């Protein structure tokens, strides 16, 4: 009963407690950063650089085919030509004067200022923190304003009942869809299927903000452009060679 807590003991015991708290909290931070369950942040911005000089026509066809295979679109039987989905397509650009033909793969350009997001009445059209533009199909009512607003014609609408979808890519009648930059792969450290399909440097995928990334360094070196740069949408997909 006579034991009194002097100043020293008090400090000792409080430091022990503080140290305990510190270990616990660092344990928590460690787990939140180590697990794949941390939300995406705006410290990254995913983008892609497409060098048309390095892409052959069959490269572009491959990109379209692997996208169909990966995401399970393209075998719709009841949709007419214009109704068929087009997550990525081959576009031919012809210079009227010289007749020079350029071929390029065209998909959602993942704008920083996406017009499709501006016009959506339900917030289904959305941009993730890391710059990926998506349709939250749970909120999509199929009004298709976004399809009209998109300068690139990159979105399509599902016109028929579907079955046997890919497990990682639910799709269904009455909603709009487009290139997701394969977020289901990217979130797990992978790269989009179309980028993987091209073995040359024709397509470079990466974090535009990261000064050490190949895409960032290449963009600093070479001449590149955004399609319809005049619209100031600051697209995540960049092109060179056109």
């Amino acid at each position, binding site marked *: 009963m006579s034991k009194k807590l002097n100043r020293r003991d008090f400090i000792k015991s409080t430091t022990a407690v503080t140290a305990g708290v510190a270990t616990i909290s660092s344990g928590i931070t460690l787990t939140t950063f180590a697990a794949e369950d*941390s939300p995406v942040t705006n410290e990254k911005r995913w983008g892609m650089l497409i060098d048309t000089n390095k892409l052959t026509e069959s490269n572009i066809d491959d990109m379209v085919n692997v996208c169909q295979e990966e995401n399970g679109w393209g075998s719709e039987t009841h949709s007419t030509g214009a109704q068929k989905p087009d997550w990525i397509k081959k576009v031919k650009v012809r210079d009227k004067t010289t007749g020079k033909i350029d071929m390029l793969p065209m998909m959602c350009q993942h704008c920083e200022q996406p017009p499709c997001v501006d016009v959506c009445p339900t917030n289904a059209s959305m941009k993730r923190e890391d710059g990926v533009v998506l349709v939250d199909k749970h909120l999509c009512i199929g009004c298709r304003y976004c399809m009209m607003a998109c300068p690139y014609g990159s979105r399509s609408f599902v016109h028929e009942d579907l079955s046997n979808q890919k497990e990682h890519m639910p799709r269904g009648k009455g909603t709009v869809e487009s290139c997701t930059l394969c977020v289901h792969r990217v979130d797990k450290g992978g790269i989009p299927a179309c980028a993987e399909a091209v073995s040359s440097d024709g397509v470079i995928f990466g974090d535009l903000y990261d000064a050490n990334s190949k895409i960032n360094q290449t963009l600093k070196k070479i001449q590149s452009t955004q399609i319809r740069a005049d619209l100031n949408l600051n697209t995540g997909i960049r092109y060179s060679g056109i």
Partner: protein
Amino acid sequence: MKRLLIVFLALTVTSVFAYGVDKHINLGDRATELKNEGKSRGIHPSLSEIRKMHPEFLLHKRDKTVHQGIRTRRNSLKECVDCHSTTKNDEYVPINAPEQFCSTCHQKVGTSLDCFSCHRTTPKEDL
């Protein structure tokens, strides 16, 4: 009077049996296996909670995945389908088909889901 009592008893007895039969909904192949091995505790900590709260869990997870890119397995719809599906003649039965896991209770309470117009109704691509 006696006859009436027998009829009454017979009725109660059959209805008790009927209840006993459909109380055990078709859990699906893997879930049944896990349950028999006594490993179901770690999956759903409380049965009454998952029975009541699964719509909320699913919607919460849905938003986390679509908006924040969080792709853990917990409460993921893919995982429910993986674990709660049944096979018949070496083929998976769609999980929302009559008498399958995601439909029995819903039929009873008159709920219909639209989830499976987009989400795959069987595990992965092939068996």
